[in-house]
Structures are given as C-alpha cells and as structure tokens.
C-alpha cells in the first residue's frame, strides 16, 4: 500500500485507516448513518485475523472496548449520535481510568431519534466530555475522506500517547461521501509510551488495578481529578490543530469545521470581498490561541447546529473587540453558499 490513489466511501476509509494503524479490537452496533464502517470492520478485521464483535448494544460495545483497552489492545468503537449517547457512561469510565481508545461519531440530527442526515449537533457532547464527571476527550473534526483516513490513524497514536479516549467527530454526510484519497502506510511513532499499566498477566511486577473509584482518603478523588487536569492542560498546549485560508488582512473570517468548512471554501472563492476561513481540526482542545491571534474584527461562525461551536469562538475571543455572528442550521440542513454570501453582505455593509 504505497501512496495509492483510490475512490472510497468515508465510512469505509475510517475502517481501512484503523486496520492500517493496527487496531486490535473493534466492537460496534448497527445504526445509520455509520453502518458501512461496522460492516467494513466485520469483514476486514476478520480477514486480518483480528477480533470483531457485533455487540448486543452500544453500551456493551463501549464496555468491550473498555476491557480490550485495559488488556492493552488498540481498541475502537463507532456509532452515530443516539448510540454515542448510550456510550457515554462507558466513555466517562474509560476517561477516568486513563485508558486509550478511539470512538467514531458520524453525527446525525437530533435530539431524540432526529433524522439520519449529517449534523454537527453533538459538538457540546463531544467537546465537553459527554458523560458524568470532570473529563475531556480529544475531539478531531475532519472535513474530507482523506482526512478521515489521516486523522483516524493519528487518533490511535494520540490515544496511546496521552492515555485518553479520542473521538473522531464526523457527520453523516462525510461518512456517506465518496471521494478520492491517497492511501499511505501507517508509521507508528517511536516515542509512544509502553503500556505498563495494562492487564496482561503480571510476570515480574505487581498486579495492575484499573479503577475509577476513589473513596478514601477524603481528597483522593480531587487528587485524581487534578492529575487528569494536568494531562488536559498538557494536551491543550501540545495539540491545537487548525487550517487557515486567506486570513491575512481578511475583512471577515468565517469559522467552520467539518462538512460546513467545504461550503465556506466555495464561498471564499466566489466572494468579491476578502474573506478568510479558520477551520478548527482539533475541536477539543479548541485552537483558541490561533483564532485569537488573527486580529480580525469580524467573525462569522457557520455550523450545522443551533449555536454550539460559536461558544468556543466567543471564549477564544473574550476580551477583544471582535464581533461574532452566527449562521446556525440544525436538523441535518447544510448551510447554503447563498445564505452565507447574504450574511457577509449584511456584516460588511
């Protein structure tokens, strides 16, 4: 597999990347619009002599990942919004137990059953933790089939490096989309820490205990939380991924991630104004410094949710005199180029 150009579907590509990156355990459960990924794994994990489990529920799948990760395996699960809600208790425990894993959310419209169109309405759930307790996930928001491939691979390395669950926050459109991409070989970073904490049978060492319960002494849990926070602060410093286009001296910068950023790119090309794009790729940690350093006075956030990422944009710009406007399309609707052009016109009047 050396730099081969192919035409592939987003959901399939996530599976191909996971297998190439050495995913050793996958558990999933059917839900639209991510079924192609589970089906891909059902075939290709087995062809690669690695375990695939179709679990009895999303709850079971995430807990199997919890177990496989505890045993030292590179483990992954995937789902779409309602299924990801079900996984939240497991995610909270995995985060609390300092274990790595990869979780893919091909977001669909909500709340409730919603619909099966792509959406970005799980942004808060993903970037704020999602389950109970003080914790974070690394959240990556790719915007193309190529990036689904690249960032799925990277997510396994990030998970192992920081011992943290990493979420790929895609959406139904990205998963269903077919696009050309270059397949390349996975190269494992040399400096990944050894999994000395894993339950592998403790020859020559004391038994490992994996837990999230800290009852005594009184401040045991606070200490644990603060240790987790040291890790989160480290990640914030080391991992702020973003892309910028035309931001130098832009009259207005549009902030958008994932599918929406593709619409915005077209807008920038067809606009007669000097418009820039700031595209966060790591949604947590949010690339706040880079955004703040843009020195632009006018920002427009465009998202397929009812004003979620806009809060991070405002927090990043807090204390500056920049104005922040919003185009919010919930329910699986993609913002159109026309409505963005119209908004720009109003803002630059």
């Amino acid at each position, binding site marked *: 597999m050396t730099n081969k150009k192919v035409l592939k579907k987003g959901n399939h590509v996530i599976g191909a990347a996971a297998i190439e990156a050495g995913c*050793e*355990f996958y*558990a999933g459960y059917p839900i639209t619009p991510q079924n192609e990924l589970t089906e891909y794994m059902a075939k290709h994990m087995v062809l690669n002599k690695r*375990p695939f*489990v179709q*679990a*009895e*529920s999303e*709850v*079971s*799948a995430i*807990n*199997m*990942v*919890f*177990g*496989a*990760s*505890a*045993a*030292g*395996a590179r*483990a992954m699960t995937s789902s779409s919004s309602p299924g990801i809600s079900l996984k939240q*208790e*497991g995610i909270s*425990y995995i985060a609390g*137990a300092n274990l790595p894993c990869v979780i893919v959310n091909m977001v669909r419209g909500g709340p409730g059953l919603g619909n099966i169109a792509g959406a970005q309405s799980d942004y808060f759930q993903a970037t704020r933790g999602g389950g109970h307790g003080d914790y974070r996930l690394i959240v990556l928001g790719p915007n193309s089939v190529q990036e689904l491939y690249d960032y799925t691979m990277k997510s396994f390395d990030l998970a192992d490096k920081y011992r943290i669950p990493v979420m790929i926050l895609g959406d139904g459109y990205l998963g269903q989309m077919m696009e050309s991409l270059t397949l390349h070989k996975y190269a494992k970073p040399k400096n990944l820490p050894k999994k000395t904490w894993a*339950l*592998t*049978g*403790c*020859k020559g060492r004391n*038994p*490992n*205990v*994996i*837990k*999230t*319960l800290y009852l005594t002494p009184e401040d045991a849990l606070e200490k644990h939380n603060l240790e987790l926070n040291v890790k989160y602060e480290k990640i914030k410093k080391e991992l702020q991924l973003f892309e910028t286009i035309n931001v130098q001296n832009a009259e207005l910068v549009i902030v958008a991630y994932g599918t929406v950023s593709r619409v915005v790119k077209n807008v920038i090309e067809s606009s007669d104004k000097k418009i820039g794009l700031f595209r966060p790729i790591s949604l947590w940690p949010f690339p706040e410094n880079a955004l703040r350093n843009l020195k632009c006075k006018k920002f427009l956030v465009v998202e397929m949710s009812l004003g979620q990422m806009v809060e991070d944009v405002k927090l990043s710009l807090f204390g500056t005199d920049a104005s922040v406007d919003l185009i919010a399309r919930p329910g699986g609707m993609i913002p159109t180029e026309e409505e963005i052009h119209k908004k720009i016109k109003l803002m630059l009047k």
Partner: protein
Amino acid sequence: MQDYLTLLKLKKLPTTWCPGCGNGLVVKALAQAMHELKMNKHNTVIVSGIGCNGRSAGYFNLESIHTLHGRAIPVAEGIKTANPKLNVIVLSGDGDLLAIGGNHLLHASRRKTNITVICVNNRIYGMTGGQASPTTPLNAKTASTPFGNEFPEIDVQPVVLANNNLYARSTVYHFDHLKQVIKKALLDKEFSFVEVMSNCYQGYGKKAGYMHPYEIIMDFKKNYNMSRSHKKELKKNEIGFVKK
C-alpha cells in the same frame, strides 16, 4: 495449604463488608479453587461489577479491573477477546448481573465467550440499603417494596443452559461444594456461570425476620440438597452443576 493466601491482599483485611456477610466466603472459595488449579496472577484477571460484591476484586492480589454497574461481562469479554491467554473471572452480584446487566448475560451466554461469571446472589441490593433486586422473593418486604415484592424472582439457570453452557449453583454454607463447582466452572472452556446463594443480613435478613446472619446460612443447609445429575436442570432447592 495456606498458600492460597498469596492470591489475596491480606493487608486490606478485614473486609469492608458487614459482620456475617457471605461475600468473604466466596472470595475464600474462589482463591482456594484458583490455587488448586494453579491459576495465578500471571494468567488471571478479575473483573468486578458494582455493589457489595463488586468490592471483591480489591481483595485479590491479581490484575483487576473495577467496571461499571452492570457491565462487568462485556468488559470481561473485551479482555478475553483481546488477550485469549488470560483467565478472565467476573465477580459480582444479582442486582448488577441480572438487572442492569441482564442483557449482557443473555448475549455473552449466546456468544459462549470463555469467561467464568460468579454471581453472588444475596437477593437484594445490599450496598444501596436493601432495595428489591430481580431475585428478591415474591411478597418480600424491602426498602423499595414496603408493601411486598409484586414480582416473582428471575430464574437465571435456563438462560445459561439455553446455550449449553455450564451452570452451577451452590451456597455459602456448602463451602467445599462451592469450591468444587467454582473449579468446574474455571476449567470449562466456554461461558460458565456460578450462582452462589449468599446472605445479606443487614439489607434483607433483618426485615425477613432473621435474628442473626448465621440463621440465614443455616437455612441454606436446611433448604438445599445436592444434585447427583450433571445433565438435568437443577431443581429450585438443589445445588450442583449442569452441563448438557
């Protein structure tokens, strides 16, 4: 003979459980069974659920993982699937495994994952203060059934046997028997399930009219007979093991 103690974290004793609780006997029976089968910390992982019995894992000097309420079985399946060389043992209670975790039991049994589940059935949610569990007897008064339990208790035996897995039942009174059936389960190469009838005096026995934990244990002696067949389902008052 005392070597099984190396499998336990003696520094953590005495246990956190109430005086007279059966959980300690189950820990001891499992440790002795493992020792006799030469299972050790190099090849064994203990997975615990949540509840009084979920604390058991903490007393084993073994690789262990303390999981979510009801989810011990899928976590154990994840470990076993990722690393088939390990012996994986689940230790939990009736509320954890049969109520919130009931669906996982159904499907692990269907998948026949090679793990051993030891369900300590004290017929109550002990840790949270004595609320009715799926195995609380009909009409029993508990903290959450002040007018008597409306529903019959769940029978887990057919669930396990439906997929021709090993099902065993014993009680904390029949200590040697308990150890023997645990050994049977640990040696089994498919999904195996041991239901251990145990006592919760604080959470259930007191309300049921018992004056002492000992009385509940002596009731096990009185009420349970040993089954001689390993092919037929156990009757309600029988202890033994079945593998069809």
